[in-house]
């Protein structure tokens, strides 16, 4: 007994080292970087992920009003502003939604910036909806069919509550077009849950304290959402699936392709975890890192749950205690709080949370960040909003912490937070801290998270459930009879998996596939091959290498379209020119899309010279080289002759053939 006691006292005397704790916990949960992770690692934690891919449709008008679609405004460019608040309402099944209540607690003043050109009274919810845009409906039926879905017999417009203010009505009008489909990836099929047609939301301008500002330009644009089952078993599959859906959408040629036109919400969970939604990921290349980290964050939260449940016997009685303190006692200027600030400062004790606050969650992050993120979102406390007893760099100082502990009557093994904020927000802040603390005992909270380029995420909102759905009483159901579906089937393009197989068959290099599919260029490859006998391989590299390079170095002009590349190939074939000249013409064509091909050739100083004339120069040049002989190297002569002929040869004769003739 005696020895045991002295042992534990010794341990207590040793100062707690958050850095070491962070490193140890990271190791203990078996975190591994994505680079080093194998399928076995993902199987160990039962990585599971599904996608909700949003795609803007290319229509002239918005979905429920007659405003033009796709006219954007700068953040500070507006004709009028108006202010609204959102209150939770009951769903059709008589429940209040969890997110709804949280958003209500945050008491946000929501300001909308309206530009007359892009928004009318519908966007700001001062007019009921006009009949649904039928072009958008047609496109969404096409994509549902391409996704092998069952198309509904009658479209019901539903209201899906969003209380974050991103839609002025407080709900998004959305309708299911198809359910239960599938897509075919390289090694597996992924099942699709549904495809819905919905109105896009506002774009956020800022969100500071209790004021959130939106612009209404994007609001109401037609958008489809393709939802998959959680069939992805590793992060790379997630990206492959997202790309596939993106390519499928684009294969119709009826969707928008600019920045922000495709955004995905990525759902992730691990064994014992919960579905967490990473919102609005607009780059598929971010997905692997994000999903990897999220799965391990959940794994870490589950480890925390184990630790806490082992430590705390009666978890229902766990609660925080707090006290208000004077700002000057803690030299908060050092923490970014202005000296004469009216902010209130509170110290909080978290029983038994030592070692939890600095527990690893994501690369470079610890559990304490979960509190700070929620304080920002729920209690509207701008960051920095807190410090805690397990920070790597303790700016508060051990002396101050000792005082905090004595004021709170903390016991060994407890952890402490100091936070600050406006008086009105303190109550919510304290509730938020206690709530998140209690959640740690149950594992992974249901939530949506915002993503960052480095692959980490922060808390965004509580994940809404099915309880926020409500039939739209402002619009009637739209029947979709079999004739309409048959008509749609006739106009469908090839499915993407068939397209990928075609590319492989045509021996089109794999490094061009993404560019070709992303820009829906297979039809051009196919047309050039069948009608002009230009090999798909050639067209593919012309587009995905030459053109992509040109695009990267020259400004885009609206007159340039991919169709022009086909016209170019057609011209070359008609003029009996050699295909190689296409690469030279392309640069001029891209820079001057209105110029005709004859003029471009003149600019290039191209002269049509018969093959025989070019070949006829070979003997002379060979002799000439023998006279001057610039190098001892065997192949130098060949290169010299080629170099002299290249300029006149390009376009007139295939360089490969020329090379062969020189060798003879």
């Amino acid at each position, binding site marked *: 007994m005696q020895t045991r006691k002295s042992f534990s006292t010794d341990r207590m005397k040793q100062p707690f080292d958050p850095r070491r704790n962070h490193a140890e916990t990271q190791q203990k949960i078996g975190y591994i970087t994505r680079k080093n992770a194998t399928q076995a690692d993902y199987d160990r934690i039962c990585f599971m992920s599904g996608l909700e891919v949003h795609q803007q449709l290319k229509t002239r008008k918005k979905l429920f009003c007659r405003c033009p679609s796709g006219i954007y405004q700068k953040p500070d460019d*507006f*004709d*009028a*502003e*108006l*202010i*609204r*608040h*959102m*209150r*939770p*309402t*009951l769903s*059709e*099944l*008589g429940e*209040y939604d969890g997110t709804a209540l949280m958003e209500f607690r945050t008491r946000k003043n929501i*300001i909308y910036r309206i530009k*007359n050109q892009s928004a009318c*009274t519908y966007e*700001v*919810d*001062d*007019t009921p909806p006009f009949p649904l845009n039928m072009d958008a409906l047609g496109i969404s039926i096409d994509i549902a069919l391409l996704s092998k879905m*069952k*198309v*509904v*017999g*009658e*479209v*019901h417009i*539903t*209201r*899906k509550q969003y*209380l974050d203010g991103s839609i*002025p*009505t*407080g*709900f998004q009008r*959305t*309708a*299911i077009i198809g*359910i*239960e489909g599938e897509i075919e990836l390289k090694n597996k099929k992924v099942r699709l849950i*549904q495809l*819905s047609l919905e109105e896009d939301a506002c774009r956020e301008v800022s969100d500071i304290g209790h004021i959130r500002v939106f612009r209404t330009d994007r609001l109401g644009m037609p958008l489809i959402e393709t*939802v998959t089952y959680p069939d992805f078993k590793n992060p790379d599959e997630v990206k492959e699936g997202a790309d596939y859906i993106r390519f499928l959408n684009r294969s119709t040629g009826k969707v928008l392709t600019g920045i922000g036109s495709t955004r995905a919400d990525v759902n992730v969970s691990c064994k014992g975890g919960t579905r967490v939604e990473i919102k609005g990921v607009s780059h598929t290349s971010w997905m692997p890192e994000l999903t990897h980290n999220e799965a391990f964050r959940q794994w870490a939260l589950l480890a925390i749950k184990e630790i806490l449940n082992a430590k705390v016997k009666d978890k229902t009685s766990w609660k925080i205690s707090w006290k208000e303190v004077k700002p000057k006692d803690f030299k908060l200027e050092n923490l970014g709080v202005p000296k004469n600030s009216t902010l209130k400062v509170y110290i909080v004790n978290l029983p038994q949370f030592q070692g939890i606050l600095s527990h690893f969650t994501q690369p470079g992050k610890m559990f304490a960040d979960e509190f700070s993120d929620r304080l920002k979102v729920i209690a509207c406390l701008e960051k920095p909003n807190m410090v805690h007893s397990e920070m790597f760099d303790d700016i508060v100082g051990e002396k101050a912490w000792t005082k905090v502990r004595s004021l709170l009557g903390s016991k060994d093994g407890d952890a402490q937070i100091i936070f600050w904020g406006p008086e009105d927000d303190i109550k919510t802040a304290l509730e938020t801290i206690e709530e998140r603390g209690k959640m740690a005992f149950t594992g992974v909270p249901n939530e949506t998270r915002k993503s960052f380029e480095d692959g980490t995420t922060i808390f965004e909102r509580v994940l809404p*459930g*099915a*309880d926020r*759905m*409500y*039939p739209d*009483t402002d619009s*009637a*159901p739209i*029947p979709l*009879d*079999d004739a309409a*579906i048959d008509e749609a089937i006739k106009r469908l393009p090839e499915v993407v998996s068939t397209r990928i197989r075609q590319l492989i068959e045509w021996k089109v290099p794999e490094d061009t596939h993404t560019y070709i599919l992303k820009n829906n260029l297979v039809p051009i490859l196919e047309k050039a091959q069948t009608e002009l006998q230009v090999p798909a391989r050639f067209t593919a590299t012309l587009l995905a290498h030459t053109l992509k390079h040109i695009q990267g170095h020259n400004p885009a002009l609206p007159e340039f379209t991919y169709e022009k590349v086909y016209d170019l190939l057609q011209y070359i074939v008609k003029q009996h020119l050699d295909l190689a000249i296409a690469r030279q013409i392309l640069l001029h064509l891209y820079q001057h899309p209105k110029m005709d091909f004859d003029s471009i050739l003149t600019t290039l100083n191209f002269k049509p010279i018969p093959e025989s004339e070019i070949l006829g120069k070979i003997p002379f040049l060979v002799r000439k080289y023998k006279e001057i002989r610039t190098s001892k190297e065997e192949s130098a002569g060949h290169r010299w002759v080629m170099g002299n002929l290249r300029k006149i040869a390009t376009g007139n004769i295939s360089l490969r053939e020329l090379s062969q003739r020189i060798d003879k």
Partner: protein
Amino acid sequence: MSEDIFQGYKGHALEVLQKYNARVWAKVRVDSSRGVFEGTILPRAENTDDKHLVLKIFTGYNIGVSIDGISNITELGYKKAVYKIPEKEFPYSKDKPNVKLLGTGGTIASRLDYRTGAVIPAFSPGELYGAVPELADICNLTTEKLFAVFSENMGPEQYKKLAIAIGNEIEKGIDGIIIGHGTDTLHYTSAALTFMVQNSPVPIVLVGSQRSSDRPSSDAALNLMHAATAAAHGDIAEVMVCMFGPTSDEYGFLHGGTRVRKMHSSYRSTFRTIGDTPLATVTRQGVTPIKHDYNRRRKDRNVKIFPYYEEKVTMVYYYTNMKPDVIDALVDAGYKGIIIIGTGLGHVNKPIYPAIERAIAKGVAIYMTVQTLWGYVHMFVYDTGRDLMAKGIIPAENMLPEVAFIKLSWALGQTSDLEEVKRIMLTPINNEITPREPYNGYLIYQGGVPEVEEFIRKFHK
């Protein structure tokens, strides 16, 4: 009657449901030509076709399945949704004023009606407290549902019932009254109550909402809070309409009951005072008077109730080339009073003069108002006007057409002596006729003008 287990389904759809014995609220698997669909069968809204079955699928969305393609329905479970606004007892505190909310069927708090697909109001204090808990910070609220009719179905019977109910509440000592009302005819009711309930010692506030309370951005909650503030704490003891000032969630207006009109079919800020300024603005912090010559709150209970109404009164909106038979037909149908809404300063064309003469001869009371809404009837300016007056048409000054209609109905409800009717009509009870039109009583700014655009940019719309 046993419960309808196929709620709302009819015709072919009903036959198919009966054939497979699939009830509303049953969780089912439907085999159809477009594939298998699973979900809960929802009631079908009225006035929809009999060709589709509505399912709520597991993701919470609703879809319709074509009845024609259905080859089988299997019931997998059953769960009926009970839609209920959480009810909490409305707290009472001694130091807060007592306010009565009289319900007529507006959309202050509402729930979904599957039969029509529309929303129907929920109303008890407990339900209201559940939906708008802030009300308890303003007053002690009790409620009474007098009737449940849509705004467009409000009429004499309801006006009289309301007036009597208000009288009773005032005598019992209430500190303020709120009337929940649909917005379409709110200004008819506010006029009727101004005439029927006179000398009220407490505020009588009519309130509605332009966006039903089943949506998060509804104006209902804030309107209700504003109305409660005006009724409980405001000093203006008149019949008023309380609705949004701007479309933003910022402040409400208290409009005088006889000068207010709904001016936009869907905007939140649809109610405007015509030919004058509103009485006051109101926020949750209190009432800020704009006008200062209002009737003040009193301690006494000396309210006067005049529940009179003659139903044979109509309005005629004059249009070019109107024929005399329109007027003749009304007279033949036994109408005792006609409000003409004339062009410009109060005119109609000559061809209907004979019909007017015939009507006057038969003892029909005819009053003239203007289509322009703003401004007075001035029948001395042109010959036509003078002719009409000579024939017995009485100019109703700057009374709004709907207000003149209500007032004439009320006056004829009291007497058939046309001289007495005229006296009542032209003696203002509460600003339905004003002696002068203030310069800021007519402000309709037009967009596109730089200084107007600057103003709009600066203040929340």
